[in-house]
């Protein structure tokens, strides 16, 4: 983004658009529609069985009812949203500053970048074990609470936040910040009045991405979650292990719808604000 006008330009695919369209639709079916139909089928049946006409009379909403009425599920959902939301917020707050310093080659910028990206090389399980070990030993009473999961998420997903902010900053023409400096603004003022607002689409997009990914993170959660602090990914895994396929499918579907609605809300909000949350 520069100080000059910028408008994306659609380009004409000609005849190729039909082929491109067909590929997109086919892809959409395989990746999304088929699995969703399968899930729906599973959710509507009391026990697992393949597609067949004979099974039609057995269809019911019982599994959905269970999910909505049993308090365990509601608490689970709240926990998950809280942890993912907290982790995403903490990460974006840290990386908004760190990513800017790194992208602008400020003092220690390179080190910050490396440090924040380091966790990318650890498998989730290793990170989970490491965090668990640390908080079993230090006298902070967060082991067995949601906080420890949030902390592990922050470490694990920090690189994504860093990437979002970093590339966001690179899209800002440096002269936008320099103009603020010449106009009399100090570094903090420039950050607050110029960089932060211009970077907000990238920050919001990063937040949403981390929020969505954190909600399905299993490796860390499975190690750090305890009975009082369950999160969704773990309990879905448990349901599967316990053979409660129907409830799993119902819960999974509801969760998917919820996540989609959240993503759409962001999208609509971004559109209204004149900025594009997804990417640009």
């Amino acid at each position, binding site marked *: *983004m*520069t*100080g*000059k*006008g910028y408008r994306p330009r659609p380009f004409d695919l000609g005849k190729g658009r039909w082929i491109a369209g067909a590929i997109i639709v086919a892809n959409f079916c395989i990746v999304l529609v088929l699995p969703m139909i399968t899930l729906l089928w599973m959710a509507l049946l009391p026990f697992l069985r393949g597609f067949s006409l004979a099974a039609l009379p057995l269809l019911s909403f019982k599994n959905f009812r269970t999910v909505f009425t049993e308090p365990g599920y509601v608490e689970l959902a709240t926990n998950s949203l809280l942890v993912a939301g907290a982790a995403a917020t903490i990460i974006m707050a840290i990386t908004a500053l760190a990513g800017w310093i790194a992208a602008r080659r400020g003092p220690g910028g390179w080190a910050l970048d490396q440090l924040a990206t380091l966790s990318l090389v650890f498998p989730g399980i290793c990170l989970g074990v490491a965090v668990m070990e640390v908080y079993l030993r230090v006298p902070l009473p967060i082991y067995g609470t949601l906080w420890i999961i949030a902390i592990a998420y922050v470490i694990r997903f920090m690189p994504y936040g860093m990437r979002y902010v970093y590339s966001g900053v690179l899209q800002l*023409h440096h*002269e*936008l910040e*320099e*103009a*603020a*400096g*010449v*106009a*009399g*603004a*100090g570094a903090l*003022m420039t950050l607050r*009045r*110029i960089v932060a*607002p*211009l970077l907000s689409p990238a920050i919001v997009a990063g937040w949403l991405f981390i929020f969505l990914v954190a909600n399905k993170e299993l490796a860390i959660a499975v190690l750090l979650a305890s009975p009082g602090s369950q999160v969704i990914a773990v309990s879905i895994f448990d349901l599967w292990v316990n053979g409660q396929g129907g409830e799993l499918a119902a819960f999974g579907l509801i969760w998917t719808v919820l996540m989609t609605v959240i993503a759409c809300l962001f999208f609509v909000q971004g559109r209204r604000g004149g900025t594009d949350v997804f990417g640009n």
Partner: protein
Amino acid sequence: MLTVRALTKIYANRFDAQAGGVRSVSFDLPQGTFFTLLGPSGCGKTTTLRCVAGLERPDGGTVLVGDRVLFDSESKTAVPLNERGIGMVFQSYAIWPHMTVFENIAFPLRVGKGQRPGREEIGRLVDQALSTVGLSGYGDRPATRLSGGQQQRVALARAIVHRPKLLLLDEPLSNLDAALREEMRIELRRLQQQIGVMTIYVTHDQSEALAMSDQIAVMEKGRVVQMGDPREIYFRPANEFVARFIGAANLLHGVCDGDVAAGAEGHVRLADGARIACHFPRAATSGKPSVVAIRPESIGLTDPARAALHGTIAATSFLGGTVRYDVAVGGLTVRVVGAAERMIASGTGVGLDFPASAAVVVD
């Protein structure tokens, strides 16, 4: 008053070993001057401007505005960028897209050090700046909904709203189309005279520099190679580089014939034996290799017998108001611009007639 002395900033370029930057740039500007840094791309104009603005830390030198030291390498003084009180228009304009036109222009008033004007005062100053640049009534527009010319005006309004002592403009017209550029050129100059602000203007366009400036510094490879008013630069180029850069001058190589004092008239003998009368800005001794610059429009075409230099017309092109001739003189081609009423055919033998004052020895 602006004083820049021995300003040096070297970029160690790891890749092509060609260290860019500026070397020992000096100039003094009286109050209210429109000063232009002119030179080809990469000669160090932007670097000079950024060092004055405080966006770049020079390796050495001194920058003074009035008697206020902005930078001095001796005493290790460097006033931070945001305390210099300078106005600047960037090449990209750097209009903040998340603000309205009004907010963009009000920004310098709101964030400056020291006492800030109140709400009403800000409104008044912004309106005044808007009307100065001819954008009255545009305050509420989102900054993204402006044409190129309007963005340029907003950038200018933002740079002058806090009444800076010094205004820096980095190729502000290079992003505009030709017609608008002509118009803004005149307007920018009018505006500068109206508010009387000392201005450093950066451009690579010599006609822009000649039309607008009180003083011009021509730069080459990080150094100022000539400084003077537009007529001096145009009619008395100091060296071959300036002569070439400032416009289509003919450059004839020869040797000095007889000792000449600085500022006097002398003679240069060209390779083919012709002896022409020239103006010598600097003293020269007999036998010194010399380059003579003659402008195409200073040369008249006459009878071959009546001129020291003669040749044959090799090519002609009708340009509407004028005719351009390429005249073969010995082994070289001399360009001549003549009146359009009379056209001389190719192949005709002609004499090249010009006053000694129009033939300048440029070393």
